């Protein structure tokens, strides 16, 4: 018997070999559009600020835009011409209820801030916040805590078409049913205000999620009561890890966490200070029951002022930190890591806005550049942040500075928060990257 294959069977053997070889050819990658995701420059961006009487809205950008247009809601006779200059840092007092600014220009990165004092029933505290752009989802946590009964959500329609949103609620005892806030319609160019008290009367604390169904909609919360007022910028999504940067004080600190999932979330808080990070006593394991909000008072001995809180959880949650003085409150919401330049005003009411910069596992560096209102550079300072720490950025040295641009340098991740203090008046704002680019999916047409 021979092992040689008879010539007559060469073809079947060849066929067999072909099949075997083809079986080992790897499967092609899943079909994707040629090019895939890529960053494209933002040509046009809008943001909306809630306003009250005598509140100041500040508008700026990291690069001069080509044009800008501001409108108030409702349409008032306020002189908004100043906002048309897309090549300067400008501010004005537009009046109630909201101001919407649209700016064009390739990667100009328009940003807006609002600042002002609350009314008497709002405790006459101070408010300071970045103005949000159009949201897909917006979370507000810790509203109405400590008897702040004047809390409200303001929905702003930035476009001309009708917008629709669903607003969901959670309290300490679980989800709050509210059919009235599902499918809320906001007509084009209008606002809609949802009073927290009207939906969740009696709730000690609430968390709110605004989900945009359609239309160009923005949402921002105003948390107010006899203890003070704060404008709370939205948090875009649940996360297992988030960083709350820059509480202006340690006093009266209360951490609120919402867990919308159906399991108990275990939250751990770490404080990053100038000397490094440490676990906050009493905050090592906060159990947040399912579908509910939990508020934890931060022990007074935990030094939080000008620090950052790293909040990690086994389930996606949203956290916020509220600090309080005798006359005012300030709320710190999760910041997003800076992936590009961000701009913040240099001062409010003659007092500087302080910037707190935090780094995570690795050291990081940011450049802080001061600009005049006409966007002329006044100098740059470099801020180095050790791993797991938070430091205060140096104050601007030049009196002409109108705004500061913070740019991350290198690979290290940094988070930035802004706060302001005038004796017992305190305020804080999240600092988020200016919208220069946006990730676009690959698109193919035929």
């Amino acid at each position, binding site marked *: 018997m021979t092992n040689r294959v008879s010539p*007559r*069977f060469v*073809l*079947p053997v*060849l*066929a067999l070999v*072909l*099949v*075997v070889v*083809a*079986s080992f*050819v790897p*499967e*092609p990658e*899943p*079909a*994707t*559009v*040629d*090019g*895939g*995701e890529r960053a*494209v420059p*933002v*040509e*046009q*961006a809008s943001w909306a600020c809630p306003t009250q009487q005598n509140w100041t809205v500040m508008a700026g950008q990291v690069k001069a835009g080509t044009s800008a247009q501001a409108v108030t809601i409702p349409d008032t006779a306020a002189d908004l011409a100043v906002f048309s200059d897309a090549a300067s840092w400008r501010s004005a007092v537009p009046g109630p209820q909201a101001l919407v600014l649209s700016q064009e220009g390739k990667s100009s990165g328009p940003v807006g801030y609002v600042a002002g004092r609350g009314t008497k029933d709002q405790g006459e505290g101070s408010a300071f916040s970045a103005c949000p752009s*159009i949201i*897909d989802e917006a979370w507000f946590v810790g509203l109405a805590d400590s008897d702040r009964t004047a809390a409200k959500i303001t929905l702003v329609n*930035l*476009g*001309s*078409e009708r*917008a629709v949103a669903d607003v969901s609620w959670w309290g300490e005892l679980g989800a709050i049913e509210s059919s009235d806030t599902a499918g809320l319609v906001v007509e084009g160019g209008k606002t809609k205000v949802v009073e927290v008290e009207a939906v969740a009367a009696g709730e000690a604390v609430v968390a709110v999620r605004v989900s*945009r*169904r*359609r*239309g*160009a909609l923005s949402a921002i919360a105003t948390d107010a009561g006899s203890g003070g007022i704060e404008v709370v910028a939205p948090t875009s999504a649940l996360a297992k890890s988030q960083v709350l940067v820059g509480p202006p004080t340690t006093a009266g600190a209360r951490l609120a966490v919402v867990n919308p999932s159906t399991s108990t979330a275990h939250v751990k808080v770490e404080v990053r200070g100038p000397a490094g990070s440490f676990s906050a006593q009493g905050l090592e394991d906060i159990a947040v029951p399912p579908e509910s909000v939990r508020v934890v008072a931060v022990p007074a001995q935990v030094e939080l002022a000008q620090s950052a809180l790293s909040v990690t959880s086994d389930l996606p949650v949203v956290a916020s930190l509220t600090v309080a003085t005798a006359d005012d409150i300030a709320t710190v919401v999760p910041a997003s890591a800076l992936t590009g330049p961000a701009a913040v005003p240099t001062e409010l009411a003659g007092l500087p806005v302080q910037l707190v910069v935090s780094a995570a596992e690795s050291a990081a560096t940011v450049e802080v550049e001061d600009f005049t209102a006409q966007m002329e550079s006044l100098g740059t300072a470099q801020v180095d942040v050790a791993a797991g720490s938070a430091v205060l950025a140096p104050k601007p040295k030049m009196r002409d500075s109108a705004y500061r641009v913070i740019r991350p340098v290198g690979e290290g991740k940094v988070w930035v928060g802004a706060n302001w203090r005038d004796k017992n008046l305190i305020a804080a704002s999240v600092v988020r990257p200016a919208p220069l680019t*946006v*990730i*676009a*999916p*690959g*698109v*193919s*047409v*035929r």
Partner: protein
Amino acid sequence: MHADDSTQRWRTKPPSVVAVLVAHRGSRWLPQTLASLDALSYRPNTTVLVHDNTDQATRDLLAANAHADRVVVSKDRTGFGAQVAHALESETEAYDWIWLLHDDAVCAPDALSALLDEATKDDSIGIVGPKIREWPSLRRLLEVGVTVTGTGHRETGLESGEPDAGQHDRAQDVLAVSTAGMLVRRDVWESLSGLDPHLPLFFDDIDFGWRANRAGYRVRTAPKAVLFHAEAARNRRRVRRGGIVEHSGERRAAALWTMLANADRHRFVLVSTRLLFGSLLRFVGFLFGKDLRSARGELVAIGHVFGKPGQMSRARGARKPLLRRSNRDLKDLFASFWMPYQHGLDLAASTVQTVVRPEEVETMGLRTLGEDGERDDPVVVELPPWWRRHPWLTCVLGLFAAALVAGRSVVGSPLTSDVLPPAAGSISQWWALLFERTHLVGLGSADQAPAYVNILSALGVPLWFAPGLLTWLLIVLAVPAAALTAHRFGRLISDDRGARMTWAVSYGLLVVVTGAASGGYVGTIIALVILPLFANILLRLVLEPTWPPAITVGLLIAVVAAFAPVAWLLAMVTLGLCAFVARPAARQLALSALIGTVLLGPWLFDRVLSGRIWWEAGNPVDAPATALQVAGGSGGVIGATPAWIAIPLVVLAVAALIPPPTRRAVTVAWIVAVAGLVVGLAASVSTFTPYPGAPAVRAWAGLGAGLWLAGLMTAVLFAWPMLRTRKYRQWAKPAVVMLAIFPILAGGWWVVRGIDDPLQADPVQLVPAFLAAGNGTTVVLTGDSEAGIVADAVVGSGPFLGAEALRTTADREERLHDAVESLLTTPSSDDVEELAKLGVDHLYAPDVDLGLARRIDIAPRLTQKGSDSPSSRVWAITSDAEPEPLPTAGPLRPWISGGWLLLWLVVFVAALPVHRSTEEPQEAQEIE
């Protein structure tokens, strides 16, 4: 008895009859003809023999005839009627009846007496004709009276080759009788002025009978009078030289002349129009049949009749005073209106029979007629049932029935699938796709239509208002169609009927096994149906290199490659190998390659040479298939059979390599199989990008898988005869069982599962119904942010088959790309305005990525509308921007398309079998 009375009457006072026999080069038949006259039981009073003095033999025979009263030499180049008239002018004796005779017709002894029996029955009878049988067979009937159809065809009312069994032996009124043996009363002849001199050769008898009828005389048949006619002129046995000769188109011209000259006044225009268009249609038909001589004759006939209105007017004027009856009064004497169509059906039936080529069992007892001339009754022998006598026909009918059962879920509607777009709403849409300069497809296109639209446009013409039937027939009847072509090829390569039929059926089922039928892969279906034809003609071409099959091979390559471009590459390789092996056929094979390439036109660059060779007709759809599936003959799609079905076939094919006597042929089949396997496996690991930037899709492996199994089963067919040898006889039973497994399982799968899913009878809904009805342009957004978004612009309900391959200009594509990208990132009114300028009315996301939908929602002037499902979104564009003009091709586009189509037509006509008219004019015969 009346007949007896009549007979008595004329016999008591016999009428005088003058017989006129006209001869032209008839020496071959004249001796018997003249002898038959001598043998008549009742002979004419006078016999006048006329000839045109064109050959010595005829002249001598006539002169030597002892019973001829007179031999007359007619004037040169005169027709039959003129010759008779000339003979009668020379007749001095009184006579009552004229009996016209041909030189190639033999009379039965009692022919004249029988004619007189009938002629004298009634005074109204003016003309009587005999029953004419074929000479020399003597049994086949040729004529028992003639009439004419509405299209101008001489109609005898007899079936071709119908034997005379007495079935027409009843005398009756007819429109006309042949001049061979015609007995006409003298006064009738004179009042009608004899035969029309305009009709020297043809239709003179019909015209004469028609005129007699309209003048109030009756024309009768006398079946008891029998004449045996050689029809020497028609059968091309008479060599015409000198005298009057037939010119091109003369027969048709005579028909047209007769029809128009005898038409009723009020119907003259209608009849003229019908005949004119009918003649033009015949002209086209002759061109298709490459019978250029007949085509020319048709044109000559048209010119001769319609180009001389004065002559026609005079002819009608001459007939007018004699008219006593209208054609309506004679309606019973004309052929039924159905008769021309009956002939068409007969032709179609014979064509089908040629295609099917029924397998018939040999029997000893077919229905026969007595051939000894003595038995009048047919002899009927016991026969097996028809389905046993025609096993292949039975099998084909079974396949058709099974096809209808398998297609039960897709009855009555145009077929669609992810791959197969719906057929055009009407054929005009396909034709428009060829000739229009702007296609209302997507964002508007100025592209040249795909090559297969040429074919669809032509094939769809008979189905003008239901072109969906074309794809329906193609897919539902794919199995019997492929089996038919395979069987035809099978007869060339195998003598074993049972194995051949099993092979053909198994081959037909490949369209099911691969999943091509249920997936709507028309390219693969067409390739598998045509492949046996291709192999058949290619084999003949290689064995006997001639040009016509070379053209046919080229045409078949182009047809298949138009639908399945990869076939072009396979065909070129095949032709190259054949040219290498069969050097004498190299030039013909080169022509085939040239035709198969040139016919594809721009399609060659667009699809074949552009890296998209795997993309068959239809939408490019991801078609994953594993190597094992391909080895099992499956294309890997839903509806394909499990791969293990092919195991018995593979085992048999391997075993087929064992017997040495058939190994060479089996090896060739194996090479084809392995080539198919290579193609299938290459497709299974290949991807292609249908258009720039689009997601790559995995190629369809079904065609290669089908070729693989086709090669294997052919290898088995080649080796099958070995099972009858002593050495391998012991394996016959297991082999039969294994051979039967494949068609049984595949056929069972086909019939039980059906061919639907993913194929369906409802259109694939690309956009919601309200958008489809609006007929606007909708950009359909599919995909997600990770895989990317495909923006597909569709008009109305989406593109039909053929339009799916058209694209808009690069500039408009780029603008749409930028607008959509911006809309999905930083939407603004500019994006919406850009879409409006591009003519987009709506955006539709059938399975929306919520994140992206929220971004789109932001755009101003984009109003969300109700959609057809919770997971989909529709946005209406409310911009005031005016749509820009659509891209338009250059003014030469229709001409280029026309030229391309003409090229296809020319090649098609050249590839058709050559048709030679049986009625060739005399000039051709004179060459000999």
